C-alpha cells in the first residue's frame, strides 16, 4: 500500500480510516448535530468540500494523489463505504434527528440510529463529494461533447447533494394547528418549541370526503381478519348489494352514511341522523355457504360519539366495519402576510399553497373526530436552497435520458 500509483487498497484504507475516525469523534463529541450545517460551520465544511478538489486540481495535477483521487479507484471505495452505511441505516431503526440520544447502548455510541447525523457518515460523505467534484473538474477542462451525459449526471448529483446538505441548515419545517373560524400565527418546531411567524393562517372551512365503508370478518378469538393469510374485505359502494366474504354470503340491505344509534333494551338500531357525530352504519345479513347458518343485524365502525357495533355470526366469527378511510381532505384558508398581502386558497394533500416564501401543506386533522374534525393541521416549509436542488435533479434527469439513449452505444465501440 501507498506505492504509486495508488489504487483500490488505498481507497478502502482511507474509507476505513475515515470510518474509524468518525466512530472516535462520535465517542468523544456525540453526534455532529447540525453543527456541520449551521452558520458559520457550514462555510467551513462546505469550504473543505470545494477547496480540497480545487487545490488538488490547481496545484498537484501532476501528482499520483490527483490521479487517484479523480479516478474510479477512489470513487468505488467511497461509493461502497457509503452503501455499507446506508445498509446499516436501513437495518437500524432510526430516531428523529431532533431527539437527543443517551449513550450506553452500542449502536448509540456509534450513532447508527441517527446515521445521517453521525460523524462516520458525515466524513465519508465529505470524501465522496470531494471525489465527485474533482472528477467533474478533471473532465470539464477536457470537455468533449460525448461527455455531456457524464457531466449532467455527475455535476447534477453534486449540485443536488451539496444544496440539499448545506441547505438543510436553513430549512425550516413547522407544524401549525388551526381551529375552524380562527386565525393562527404560532407554529411548533420539530423539537416542540413555539415560534411566531410573519404570516397567519385563517381556517375558513375544513372538509373531508370519505370512502364508502368496508366490511370484514374477524376471528372472535384472535381478532385477526379472515381468511387468515389473505384477509378479504367488501366495499359497500351502494345498497342494496351482495357479496362474499370468507365463506359467507353477505347482503347489505341498508347503508346509512349519516346515522345515529338508538339502544332499546338489548336491541341496537340505527336511524338517519345528520348532525354532528353521525356515523356510518350498515344493515347486513350473512349466510354461511357451507352450513347455511344465518345472522343479521347492524354493523358500524363507531366514532367519538357512538360505540362500535359488530354482528356476531357464530361463536368463531364476527362481521365488522373497520374505521372508514378518508378519500380527500382539504382546508379553505386565507393567509395574511406582514405586508398586508393576503392569499386565499385551498390546501390539500399533494396540493400545497405558496405564500410569502413558505409552502403550506395539509398534514393532518383531529383523527379522533374523523369527518367532524374542527381543526386542521398544516406543515409549513421554507427551503431557500430548493431551486438549486431542483436544478441538480433536472440535470440528473437529463443525464439519465442521455444514459438511456447513448451510453450502451459507447460500450460497443
Amino acid at each position, binding site marked *: 500500500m501507498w506505492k504509486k500509483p495508488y489504487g483500490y487498497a488505498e481507497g478502502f484504507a482511507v474509507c476505513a480510516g475515515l470510518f474509524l475516525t468518525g466512530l472516535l469523534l462520535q465517542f468523544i463529541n456525540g453526534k455532529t448535530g447540525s453543527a456541520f450545517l449551521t452558520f458559520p460551520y457550514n462555510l467551513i465544511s462546505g469550504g473543505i468540500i470545494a477547496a480540497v478538489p480545487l487545490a488538488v486540481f490547481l496545484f498537484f495535477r501532476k501528482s499520483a494523489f490527483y490521479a487517484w483521487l479523480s*479516478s*474510479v*479507484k477512489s*470513487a*468505488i471505495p467511497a*461509493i*461502497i463505504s*457509503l*452503501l455499507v452505511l*446506508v*445498509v446499516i*441505516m*436501513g*437495518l*437500524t*431503526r*432510526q430516531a428523529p434527528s431532533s431527539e437527543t440520544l443517551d449513550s450506553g447502548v452500542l449502536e448509540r455510541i456509534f450513532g447508527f440510529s441517527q*446515521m*445521517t447525523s453521525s460523524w462516520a457518515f458525515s466524513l465519508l460523505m465529505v470524501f465522496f463529494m470531494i471525489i465527485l467534484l474533482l472528477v467533474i473538474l478533471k473532465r470539464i477542462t477536457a470537455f468533449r461533447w460525448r461527455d455531456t451525459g457524464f457531466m449532467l449526471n455527475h455535476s447534477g448529483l453534486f449540485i443536488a447533494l451539496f444544496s*440539499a446538505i448545506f441547505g438543510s441548515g436553513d*430549512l425550516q*419545517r413547522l407544524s401549525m394547528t388551526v381551529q375552524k373560524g380562527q386565525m393562527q400565527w404560532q407554529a411548533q418546531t420539530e423539537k416542540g418549541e413555539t415560534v411566531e411567524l410573519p404570516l397567519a393562517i385563517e381556517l375558513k372551512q375544513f372538509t373531508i370526503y370519505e*370512502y364508502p365503508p*368496508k366490511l370484514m370478518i374477524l376471528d372472535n378469538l384472535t381478532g385477526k381478519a379472515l381468511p387468515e393469510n*389473505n*384477509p*378479504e*374485505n367488501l*366495499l359497500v359502494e351502494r345498497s342494496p348489494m351482495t357479496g362474499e366474504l370468507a365463506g359467507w354470503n353477505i347482503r347489505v340491505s341498508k347503508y346509512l352514511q349519516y346515522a345515529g344509534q338508538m339502544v332499546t333494551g338489548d336491541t341496537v338500531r340505527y336511524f338517519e341522523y345528520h348532525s354532528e357525530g353521525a356515523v356510518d352504519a350498515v344493515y347486513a345479513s350473512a349466510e354461511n355457504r357451507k352450513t347455511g347458518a344465518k345472522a343479521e343485524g347492524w354493523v358500524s365502525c363507531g366514532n367519538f360519539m357512538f360505540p362500535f357495533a359488530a354482528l356476531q355470526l357464530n361463536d368463531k366469527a364476527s362481521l365488522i366495519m373497520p374505521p372508514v*378511510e*378518508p*378519500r*380527500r*381532505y382539504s382546508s379553505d384558508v386565507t393567509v395574511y402576510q406582514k405586508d398586508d398581502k393576503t392569499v386565499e386558497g385551498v390546501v*390539500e*394533500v*399533494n*396540493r*400545497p399553497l405558496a405564500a410569502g416564501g413558505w*409552502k403550506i*401543506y395539509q*398534514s393532518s386533522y383531529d383523527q379522533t373526530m374523523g369527518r367532524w374534525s374542527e381543526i386542521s393541521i398544516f*406543515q409549513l*416549509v421554507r*427551503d431557500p436552497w*430548493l431551486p438549486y*436542488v*431542483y436544478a441538480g*435533479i433536472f440535470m*440528473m*434527469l437529463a*443525464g*439519465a*435520458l442521455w*444514459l*438511456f439513449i447513448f*451510453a*450502451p452505444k459507447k*460500450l*460497443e465501440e
Partner: protein
Amino acid sequence: MTWDWFKFFAVAAALFWFLGAWFALREKGVKKAVILTVTGLLVFFSFIVGMWISLERPPLRTMGETRLWYSFFLPLAGLITYVRWRYRWILSFSSILALVFICINIFKPEIHNKTLMPALQSPWFAPHVIVYMFSYAMMGAAAVFALYLLARPDKINRGVMSLCDNLIYVGLAFLTVGMLFGALWAKEAWGHYWSWDPKETWAAATWLGYLVFVHFRDNFPNSRYKTALVIILVSFVLLQVCWYGVNYLPSAKGISVHAYS
C-alpha cells in the same frame, strides 16, 4: 373488469409472447416476433386499462398490482432489447420471467380494493411506480442472466458482458428517474424531497449498488467479469429489500410512509 378476468387476458397474452419468442429464435422471424409480442402486450395492457377504469385509480397500490406491471414490462423490456441489439433468445427469457409473475398473481391473488390514501392521489403516482417497475424488469433480467453466467462460467465473454452492461445502463437510467420522480413527488406530498424513510433508504442503497457496477465496468471493461456479475446480484438483493423486503424489516415496522398493502 375484475381480477376474475385476469387469467384469460394473461394466458392469451402469454401465448402471443411465447409464439413471438419462438419466431425470434429463428433467423428470419424478426418481424413476426415483434408483431406477436406487441399483440401480447396490447392484450395485457387492455386488462390493466380495464382495471384502472373499474378501480377508478391506477392499479399500482398493492404488491399484486405492481406485479401486474412487472409482468407487462418484462416482455416490453425484452422487446426493446431485442429490437435494439437482436439477442435472439431474449424474448424467450423475458416471456418466462413474465409468466412467473403472472402465475403468482393467478395462484396467490390478493384482495384489491378501490381505496387509495390521499398522499397517493397525485399525478406523480403513476409515472413514479411505472418507471420503477420498468427498471426492476431490466434489473431482474440482468440478475437472472448473471446467475446463469456464474453457474456456467464457460459462457462468459465480452459479448454477454456487454448485454449485462446494456441492461444495467438502461435499468439504472430508469432507476434514477424513478427515484427523482419520487423526490419531486415527496416534496409536493410531504413537504420534503428526501426524508430517509426506510423505503427511501433502501432505494438509495440499491442505487449505490448499481453505481458500483457501472464504475467497476468502467475501470475493468475487459476483465474481472465474475466480480462484476456478483455486484449485479448483490445490487439485486438490495432491490428486493427495497421493493417488498422493507415490509418485513423490524427496523421499518410501523414508521414507513411507504407501508401500504
